[in-house]
C-alpha cells in the first residue's frame, strides 16, 4: 500500500444554512479508481466540487500529493494535475470542438498540439468535426469531448461527476470503457455516480453517501457482495433503461 494521493478528512459543505456535506472522509491510492455513490441530493457533487476547488468547504481538510489544498482555487489545482469532468459536461457549446480541447490545456499556456492529436486519434468523432461548434455534438459525443478535454490537461487525478448521466446504454458502456482506459494508464479516478452498481463494478473502492455522510465504505467487491447494502442503497436502480437486466439481483 502506498500513501494516498488524495485524502479528504471530515469535509463539510454548506449552502447558506443548508448543510449538504456533513463530515465526509475518503481517500484514493495512486492509480486506483474510487467511487462515491448515492441517491439524488446525497451530496456527491458538493464533495467533488469542494475537492476541485470550485467551492469553498465549510470545514475539513483536503490534501493532494501530500499538500493541503483545502482552500486552493480551481484554476491552481488544474495546473497541479487535479482535473474535473463536471456534472452536466459543461462543454463550451458555441466554441469549436478544437477550441474546447485547446481550453483543456489552458494552464500550460501553450497549444498542446500533441495531446490534442492524441485525443483526435482516440476519439475519431471529434477529429472529423473539430471545426464545428461543440454544441452540434450529441450528448454522448459531448461527454467524450468533456473527458478528452480533461485528458488534454494531463491529470494525475481525474474527478468525474456522473459521466453516464442521461446517456443511452450503449454510450454508457463506451464511457465506462474509456474510464477503464484512463485508469489503466495510471491516472487516479474519483468517480461519482448514481449508477451505483455499474460504478462499483468498475471501482477498487467505494463509498456510499446518504444525506451528506458516508454510510458505508470498503472494497467495491465487498459492497457489491453485501446483501444489506445492495438492498438498502443500491437495490433500486435509478431508472436507467438497460441497466436493470445486467444488474439484476
Amino acid at each position, binding site marked *: 500500500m502506498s500513501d494516498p494521493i488524495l485524502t479528504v478528512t471530515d469535509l463539510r459543505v454548506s449552502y447558506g444554512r443548508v448543510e449538504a456535506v456533513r463530515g465526509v472522509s475518503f481517500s484514493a491510492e495512486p492509480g486506483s479508481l474510487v467511487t462515491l455513490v448515492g441517491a439524488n441530493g446525497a451530496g456527491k457533487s458538493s464533495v467533488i466540487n469542494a475537492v476541485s476547488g*470550485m467551492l469553498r468547504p465549510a470545514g475539513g481538510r483536503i490534501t493532494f500529493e501530500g499538500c493541503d489544498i483545502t482552500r486552493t482555487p480551481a484554476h491552481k489545482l488544474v495546473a497541479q494535475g487535479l482535473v474535473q469532468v463536471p456534472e452536466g459536461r459543461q462543454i463550451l*457549446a458555441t466554441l469549436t470542438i478544437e477550441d474546447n480541447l485547446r481550453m483543456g490545456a489552458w494552464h500550460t499556456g501553450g497549444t498542446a498540439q500533441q495531446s490534442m492529436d492524441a485525443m483526435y486519434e482516440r476519439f475519431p468523432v471529434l477529429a472529423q468535426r473539430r471545426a464545428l461548434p461543440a454544441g452540434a455534438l450529441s450528448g454522448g459525443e459531448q461527454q467524450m469531448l468533456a473527458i478528452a478535454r480533461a485528458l488534454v490537461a494531463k491529470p494525475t487525478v481525474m474527478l468525474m461527476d456522473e459521466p453516464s448521466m442521461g446517456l443511452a446504454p450503449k454510450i454508457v458502456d463506451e464511457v465506462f470503457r474509456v474510464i477503464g482506459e484512463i485508469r489503466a494508464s495510471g491516472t487516479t479516478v474519483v468517480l461519482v455516480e448514481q449508477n451505483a452498481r455499474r460504478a462499483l463494478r468498475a471501482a477498487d473502492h467505494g463509498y456510499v453517501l446518504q444525506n451528506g455522510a458516508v454510510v458505508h465504505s470498503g472494497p467495491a467487491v465487498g459492497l457489491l457482495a453485501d446483501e444489506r447494502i445492495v438492498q438498502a442503497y443500491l437495490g433500486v436502480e435509478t431508472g436507467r433503461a438497460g441497466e436493470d437486466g445486467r444488474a439484476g439481483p
Partner: protein
Amino acid sequence: MQQLLNGIFIGSIYALFAIGFTLVFGILDRLNLAHPAVFAASAFVGIELVERGGLSLWAALPIVFVFGAVLGLLIERLAFRPLKGRADAHFAGLISSIALAGMVIALLQWRYGPDTRRFPAGSFPDTRYEVAGAQVTLVQVVILGVSLALMVGLTYMVTRSRLGRGMRAVAENPTAARVLGVNVDRITAVTFAISSALGAVAGVLFAINVNTAQLGMGSAIELKGLAVIIVGGMGSLPGALIGGLVLGLAEVFAVQYIGSSWRDVIAFGLLFVILLLRPQGLLGARKVREV
C-alpha cells in the same frame, strides 16, 4: 465627399467607444455605465498631458491608453467585483457603475473646473491632404488609423489569441471556464482594462477631432454608444464598428442636408428603423463568443 470623410472620422471614434462598451457586455454580460466617464476623463487627461507635460498629441495617446486600462481595473474592482455574488448582480453593477461615473465626473470638475478645455495652440500639425476634392488633415488620418488599428487588433486578439479564447470561454460559460483552470477573476479584470483603454483612446481622439473637452461629453456619447451596440447586435465587435460608422455618417449628412437641429432626430431615427427591421441587431446578438 467631404461629408463622407467627416462622417467616417467621427464614426470611427463612435465605433471605438462602442466596441469597448460592447466588449464588456459580450464577454461578461455586464453593462459598464462608467465607460462614458472614462471617455471624458481621458480627454481631459490627454489635454493636460499636452498642455502641462509638453507632450505631442501622439505621445499622449499611449499614455492615455494605459491610464484608461488602470481606470478599467479600478471600475471592475470598485463597481463590479464586490457585487458579483449577488443574485441581482446585473442591476447592481449598472447602478454602482453609474455612481462611479458620477464620482469621476465630479473629480474632473474639481480638478479642471466647469469650463470647456482645449489643446494649446500649435498642438496640431497643419499637414493637409487633398482626397478626391476633399480636404483631409493629418490629424484626421491619424484618428481613423488609430481607431481602425485598435479595433482590428482587438478583434484579432479575441478571435485568435489564447487570451481571447479564454475570454470567449468565460463569455460562453463561466463555470466551465473555471473548471478548465481559467482564472475568471483575472479574465474579468483584463476585459475591463482593455475595454476602458479603448474608451480612453476614443475620448482623446474625440477631443482632438473637435479640439474640445467638456464635462458633459461622456453623457453625450453614452446614448450614442448604447444605440450603436444595440443596433450592431449586443456583444458583437464588428457590429459595433459598423454601427458606429453608420451613426457618424448619419449625423454628418443630417447636418449637411437637413439642418443641425435635426442631427439627433435623423441619426437616432435611422438606428430605430434598423432595429425595427432587424430586432436582433445588424450582426445578431452576442457574437463575441462566436467570431
